[in-house]
């Protein structure tokens, strides 16, 4: 299959502007500046591109919410916080093809009429940040960034803003708070960022992978992009595969690709020939699939929804028959209770209590009512908080207990 996002990954020095240009990079800009910003938005709408950061919101539609009749500046924030467990795709785009992301930033910023973009990168990504810093310097030198880009009269400044270790800052409103120099506490919505965002101004937040798909769409048109994927989930997506497979790594696939084929063919099958037990298909926050469900699932927004899960960030965590599901869930509960920002009681207390109960169960001191207690806590977390971090633990709790209840029961003390 033709690749869109990863096509340069194997090339030597793929991160340099020379190599990027030699593969057609930055060529879409001429076309871009000949278009009206609104027409760019329409083209992206037509492409059917949806956000690759987790929520899957239609990208063109998000951009169209930015009001153009007010004098305030507009901003683009690129979400490079990549911290959803199981996800490691944006890192590779930034390390191996940073110019594709930068070209995408120019396209998005022009469309929403922003003259400033910030790349919010997680603090641990020191090497990807070096690659981006170098790529930005090259792009400025070549006149792709800065004042009057390629004689178009359009100005754009791009800055990298380094985070400092906090999963919650990947949530778009927490990201803006963090950028403004505050704790990463998510904001109540509405107002939505497109209207009141960074520094109180209209703001678009897009994921690295979303932005990196734009050069292809600009260069080849929405129809070419729609040739990939399914009718409702067009295009390609990167899937980060980790866990018990022979060849973990990033795979760019057309949406709608069978999960079974990804595991058994692309990833070379299960490690040590073990049997498949469960798959988390979209980053640790989404409901888990049993082996049987996973083997029937297709990797698109609708296909995974039909199986009761979600495409999320595309982080595919594969677990074999030896996996202890109780320990797996306890690991996630530790993560979410550690990462809760603490603003909402159902999340702060719920993630903490769940973790405490699960630790007790793993230690062999679980009580008979503990599983129902966990479900009751999950119920109190779902949909009752400022952001969806609480749901991100509630969904695993519900799905693990539903699908692997016997395993949890076998841990409990007998009455």
């Amino acid at each position, binding site marked *: 299959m033709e690749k869109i996002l990863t096509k340069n990954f194997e090339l030597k020095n793929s991160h340099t502007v020379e190599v990027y240009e030699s593969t057609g990079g930055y060529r879409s800009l001429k076309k871009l500046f000949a278009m009206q910003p609104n027409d760019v938005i329409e083209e992206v709408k037509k492409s059917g591109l949806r956000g690759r950061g987790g929520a899957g919101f239609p990208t063109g539609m998000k951009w169209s919410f930015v009001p153009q009749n007010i004098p305030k500046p507009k901003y683009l924030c690129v979400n490079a916080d990549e*911290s959803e467990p*199981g996800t490691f795709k944006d890192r590779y785009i930034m390390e191996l093809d940073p110019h594709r992301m930068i070209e995408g930033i120019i396209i998005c910023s022009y469309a929403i009429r922003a003259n400033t973009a910030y790349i919010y990168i997680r603090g641990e990504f020191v090497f990807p940040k070096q690659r981006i810093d170098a790529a930005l310097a090259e792009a400025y030198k070549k006149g792709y960034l800065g004042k009057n880009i390629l004689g178009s009269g359009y100005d754009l400044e791009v800055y990298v803003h380094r985070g400092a270790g*906090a999963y919650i800052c990947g949530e778009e409103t927490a990201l803006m708070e963090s950028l403004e*120099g505050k*704790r990463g506490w998510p904001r109540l919505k509405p107002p939505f960022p497109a209207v009141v965002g960074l520094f109180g101004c209209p703001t678009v937040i897009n994921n690295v992978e979303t932005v990196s798909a734009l050069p292809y769409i600009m260069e080849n048109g929405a129809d070419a992009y729609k040739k990939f994927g399914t009718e409702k989930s067009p295009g390609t997506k990167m899937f980060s595969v980790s866990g018990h497979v022979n060849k973990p790594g990033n795979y760019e696939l057309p949406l709608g690709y069978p999960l079974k084929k990804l595991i058994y063919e692309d990833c070379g099958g299960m490690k040590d020939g073990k049997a498949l037990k469960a798959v988390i298909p979209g980053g640790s926050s989404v409901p888990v699939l049993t082996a049987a469900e996973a083997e029937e699932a297709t990797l698109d927004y609708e296909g995974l929804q039909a199986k009761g899960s979600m495409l999320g960030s595309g982080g595919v*965590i594969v677990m074999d028959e030896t996996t202890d599901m109780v320990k797996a869930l306890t690991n996630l509960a530790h993560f979410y209770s550690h990462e809760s920002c603490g603003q909402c009681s159902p999340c702060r207390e719920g993630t903490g209590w769940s973790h405490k109960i699960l630790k007790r169960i793993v230690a062999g001191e679980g009580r008979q009512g503990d599983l129902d207690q966990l479900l009751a806590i999950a119920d109190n977390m779902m949909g009752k908080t400022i952001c969806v971090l609480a749901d991100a633990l509630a969904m695993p709790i519900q799905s693990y207990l539903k699908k692997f209840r016997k395993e949890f029961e076998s841990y409990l003390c007998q009455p």
Partner: protein
Amino acid sequence: MAFEFTAENKKKFEEVVKRYPQRRAAMLPTLWLAQEQHGWISPEVMEYVAKLLELTPAKVYEVVTFYTMFNLKPVGEYHFQVCRTLSCQLCGAEGITEHLKKKLEVPLGGTSADGKYSLSEVECLGSCGTGPMLQLNDEYHENLTAEKLDALIGSLK
């Protein structure tokens, strides 16, 4: 002991502030500069940063304590941070931590008496396909085994 940026960092700070329409937004970059210079964020550093950003020290304190990467006390010259989250756990992260505890003779969350090594567990570092893995100061070390760890520690002597 009062803290102050070096002349070079003062210049860098002036550059950073210009990137944002509000001074406070320079918070994280300024704290990063300070941590690079000082190794950790002491109360004196917070006061200094507050003055630079024209904020109360409390506003700086609440930020420093919110993020895990700002050190509230000095850390060892070599800081091992092992990812403990699910994908790495599935691939044997616990063994990596245990091995380091023994080899470095440092408890989890502690620093060796000579100030050379610190060891901590951290959450997913975005390197799940190459787990188990750890971050040593600024660098990632992936697909770890006991042999690789020994070689790594050996290279630090």
